[in-house]
C-alpha cells in the first residue's frame, strides 16, 4: 500500500481547547479573557455537565464501575473527533465555526467528559483492593476512547468526501 502523499488531518489543531490554535489564515483571534468566548464555553460547559449528571442519575455505578462516566467519556471522545474534523474540513477557525468549536467542543463536550472522575474512581478501586478492575477500567477508557476519537475523525472525513463528490457530480 502506497504511503499517503499528504496528511489528510494536517489542518487539525494540536490543542483544540485554546483560543490560540495554529490556524494559518483568518482574522486574529481574541485573547483568553475575551468575554464572548468565555460565555460560549460557560454555556456549553453547563449543558455538558448537566448531561453527564443526568446520565449519572439514570445509570448508577454498579460493581464499582461508574458506567455513566465511562459512557460520557467514550461518547464525548467520539463526538469531539466528529466535531473538530467536520469543522476543519469546512474552513478556518473563525466566525460561526469558531463559535461552534467553543460552544460544543470546548464547552459542551469538555464539560460532558471528565478526567478527574476517571482517575479518582480508578484510585478508589485500586485502594479497595480491586487493582485488576481499576486497571481494566482506566486503560480500557483510554484505549477505547482513543479508538472512538479516531472513528469520529474518520466518519466526519468520509461524510465530507461524500458531500464534496456529490457537489462535484451536481
Amino acid at each position, binding site marked *: 500500500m502506497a504511503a499517503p502523499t499528504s*496528511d489528510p*488531518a494536517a489542518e*487539525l*489543531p*494540536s*490543542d*483544540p*481547547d*485554546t*483560543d*490560540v490554535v495554529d490556524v494559518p489564515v483568518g482574522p486574529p483571534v481574541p*485573547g*483568553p479573557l475575551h468575554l464572548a468566548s*468565555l460565555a460560549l*464555553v*460557560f454555556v*456549553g*460547559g*453547563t449543558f*455538558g*455537565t*448537566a448531561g*453527564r*449528571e443526568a446520565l*449519572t*442519575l439514570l445509570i448508577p455505578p454498579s460493581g464499582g464501575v461508574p458506567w455513566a462516566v465511562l459512557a460520557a*467519556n467514550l461518547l*464525548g*471522545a467520539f463526538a*469531539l*473527533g466528529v466535531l*473538530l474534523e467536520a469543522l476543519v474540513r469546512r474552513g478556518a477557525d473563525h466566525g460561526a465555526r469558531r463559535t461552534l468549536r*467553543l460552544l460544543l*467542543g*470546548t*464547552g459542551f*463536550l*469538555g*464539560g460532558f*467528559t*471528565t*478526567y*478527574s*472522575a*476517571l*482517575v*479518582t474512581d*480508578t*484510585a478508589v478501586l*485500586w*485502594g479497595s483492593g480491586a487493582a485488576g478492575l481499576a486497571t481494566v477500567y*482506566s486503560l480500557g*477508557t*483510554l484505549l477505547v*476512547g*482513543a479508538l*472512538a*476519537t*479516531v472513528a469520529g*475523525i474518520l466518519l466526519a472525513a468520509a461524510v465530507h468526501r461524500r458531500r464534496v463528490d456529490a457537489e462535484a457530480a451536481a
Partner: protein
Amino acid sequence: MSPLLFLVVALAGGVGAAARFALDSVIHSTTARRRLGTALPWGTLAINLSGSLLLGVLVGAVGAGALGDEWQWALGSGFLGGYTTFSTASFETVRMLQQRRWTAGLVNGLLQLVVATALAGAGLWLGSLL
C-alpha cells in the same frame, strides 16, 4: 437529588469549563514560543493533573466526614468535572499519533493517566486527614 442541587452542579460545571478555557489559553500563549513549548499540550495536562489531585482531596474529605455529600456533587461532579476533560486529552493524543509523534502520544495518553491516578490517590490520602 433536588432540582436546585442539579442546577448548582450544572452551573459549577460551566464555571469549571470557563476556567479551563481561560487557563489553557494563558498556558498555551506563554509556552508556545518556548523550546518544548509545543512538545506536549501543557495546558490540558496542567488542568487534568491539578483537577485530579483536587478531586482526590475532595472525595477523601467527604469520605472522612469533613465535608457533606453536596460538596462532592457541586465541586466534584460539577466544577472539577467541567474543569477537567477526557475528550480533549484523547483528541490531542490521537493527533500526536497521527503525526507519528509516538513518544509524545504515549506520554500524553499513558503517562498522563498514571500520574493523574497517583495524584488522585495522594489527594484521597490528604483529604482523609482533614
